């Protein structure tokens, strides 16, 4: 498969592994921010190939994992109404809210539909004019442009039964917050797909003000190893830089068209992150002119603040302070079948990655 096989090439992998072993002299802690990276690293078995000087940490880059329980509680409350069709990406179905999951509510008769694009949710709204269709918008800049396009289309077509419940977030404020909180990291393996949209400029502050290396990295083994090598060299030479390894997908200026649509539809708000609490200007909400599509505004979604599960250390794991295997619930009480914390639910979650591909 083109653009995949080249990046699984064994001789390239061997060369990179050799170079990493040669260059890495001092202990270094690198954080992969993106859940896709966590999964790819575990699935390809990369940790076993690295020297003991390198420690990989998983960061807050799995959208399901960092989203608060209150989002699921709100979704469940919506799903209880007879005239609502709830539409969602598959990952969210099994995420535990305070008392239930969307999967369980669906079994009880709630109309919860898994979709692959918010435009499908809009189609459902068009075909069900007597129902209210709510899309659960979640994810970083990889998914928020699709939500934005859908809102624009809904506005253009004057659709009045479609709503967005937004848990969309942006990445850099959380990456900076981690460092300010004192989490010990020496470099960031920056998210490849987020950066495809945003470009590389969003990491400038982290490099310049916080003096931390940033390398935007792809998702195949050769990408990841090359990204790691670039960060190791930056660290060993004491020169943090903002670099792009994933050049075949990421341009420094990003995807200008997608950014324009994002800015047209959304504005920043302070948002809550599991593990980090409220991070200023880190979430996306619909601008005033699109308020009619805002589920938070249209429906009464005031619910008591949920409590996190006792014993669950998802928050600490998302900050890279602890490993999934440090959690007492891991693998015994908390499994992908019966997840306690969000990091076990999502296919991009650190706990599921460690559980599925442990060794």
């Amino acid at each position, binding site marked *: 498969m083109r653009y995949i096989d080249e990046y699984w090439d064994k001789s390239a992998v061997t060369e990179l592994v050799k170079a990493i072993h040669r260059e890495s002299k001092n202990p270094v802690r690198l954080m992969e921010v993106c859940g896709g990276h966590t999964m790819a690293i575990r699935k390809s078995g990369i940790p076993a190939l690295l020297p003991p000087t390198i420690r990989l940490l998983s960061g807050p880059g799995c959208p399901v994992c960092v989203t608060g329980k209150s989002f699921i509680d709100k979704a469940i409350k919506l799903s209880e109404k007879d005239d609502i069709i709830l539409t969602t*990406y598959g990952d969210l179905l099994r995420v535990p809210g305070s008392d239930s999951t969307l999967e369980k509510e669906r079994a009880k008769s709630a109309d919860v539909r898994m979709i692959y694009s918010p435009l499908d949710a809009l189609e459902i709204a068009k075909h069900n004019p007597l129902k209210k269709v709510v899309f659960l918008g979640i994810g970083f800049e990889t998914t928020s442009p699709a939500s934005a396009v859908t809102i624009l289309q809904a506005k253009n077509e004057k659709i009045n039964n479609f709503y967005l419940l937004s848990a969309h977030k942006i990445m850099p404020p959380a990456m900076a917050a981690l460092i300010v909180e004192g989490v010990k990291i020496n470099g960031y393996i920056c998210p490849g797909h987020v950066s495809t949209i945003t470009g590389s400029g969003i990491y400038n502050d982290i490099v310049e003000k916080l003096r931390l290396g940033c390398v935007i990295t792809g998702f195949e083994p050769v990408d990841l190893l090359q990204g790691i090598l670039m960060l190791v060299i930056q660290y060993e030479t004491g020169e943090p830089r903002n670099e792009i390894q994933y050049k075949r997908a990421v341009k420094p200026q990003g995807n200008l068209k997608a950014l324009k649509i994002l800015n047209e539809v959304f504005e920043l708000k302070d948002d809550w992150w599991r593990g980090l609490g409220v991070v200023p200007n880190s979430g996306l909400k619909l601008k005033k002119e699109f308020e009619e599509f805002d589920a938070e505004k249209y429906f009464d979604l005031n619910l008591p603040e949920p409590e996190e599960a006792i014993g669950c250390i998802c928050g600490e794991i998302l900050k890279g302070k602890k490993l999934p295997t440090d959690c007492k619930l891991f693998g015994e009480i908390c499994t992908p079948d019966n997840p306690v914390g969000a990091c076990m639910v*999502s296919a991009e979650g650190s706990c599921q990655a460690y559980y599925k591909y442990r060794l």
Partner: protein
Amino acid sequence: MNSGTILLSHGSGGKRSNELIKGLFLRYFGNEILNAGGDSALLVMNSENLAFTTDSYVVDPLFFPGGDIGKLAICGTVNDLAVSGATPEFFSAGFIIEEGLDFQILEKIVKSMADTAIQANIKIVAGDTKVVNRGKCDKIFINTSGIGKLKPHHRKISSGEGIQPGDKILINGFIADHGIAVMSARNDFKVLAKVESDCAPLNDLVNGVLQVSENIKFMRDATRGGLATVLAEITTNKNFGIEITEEQIPVRESVRGMCEFFGFDPLYVANEGKIVFIVAEKDASQILLNLQKNEYGKNAAIIGTVVSEHPGMVVLQTKIGGKRIVDMLSGDQLPRIC
């Protein structure tokens, strides 16, 4: 059982299905024949060795590239008998039909069953039909049961009790075709992929293998839960482990692409025409050649070895030389967000 309602994932063929079987059905129905847990029940009647099995088929859409619910209903049961070492012979077919189903659709399904029955050389000798109110079932559900003769020395195959370190693991071709074909065919799925289901009756293929080797230790069709789940099941609580090599596992490029796209692991995607064989090392290459001669085994490959290390665990050697564990499907695979 720790949840109050039945969820879709209780039927996914993974861990939750396993819990349901062990925690409920075996608790009430358990007996020495059922407890053996093979693909078919092994019976002795009038000193004749028989294998008996049943399966129900629900699939949406009813027709998909490479097959339909009728073909599936025959192949699935044929294959369950075949992997038990038996020769499938007599089948029953039960239909639960939703009021309003187009007669032509029903006929098309029944014809497909008849054609597949001829191909697999079995006879449908008993049947039942129920029609339920609209909305009480989804178009049509089919149950088939089948019975077949079993040679006494093949009785050991379904339990895999002869497996030992050094044995080789084979599969008769590309994995994950069925799951991807059905997913692509679903109405709400606007992706164009030219993947056909591998749905096929494999009794002829199995028969060929049983004729060339007396050292077939185990066979199982890797349906729901995929190749990974079969390997994990056979290894659980055993004093041997399994090592498989990613590079040797046949996955079609288009299927790999679709899996990449949705964040699926092809090892966990359903098949309807793939069997995992565990065979003595000395016969492995001869069995491979024999498989490759059959139309349903052209892309067969040796994918791994039974080992004495890491007992109870399946370890995959990744393409780049890394290693990771392969576990049973835990929950359905859900398409990822990004």
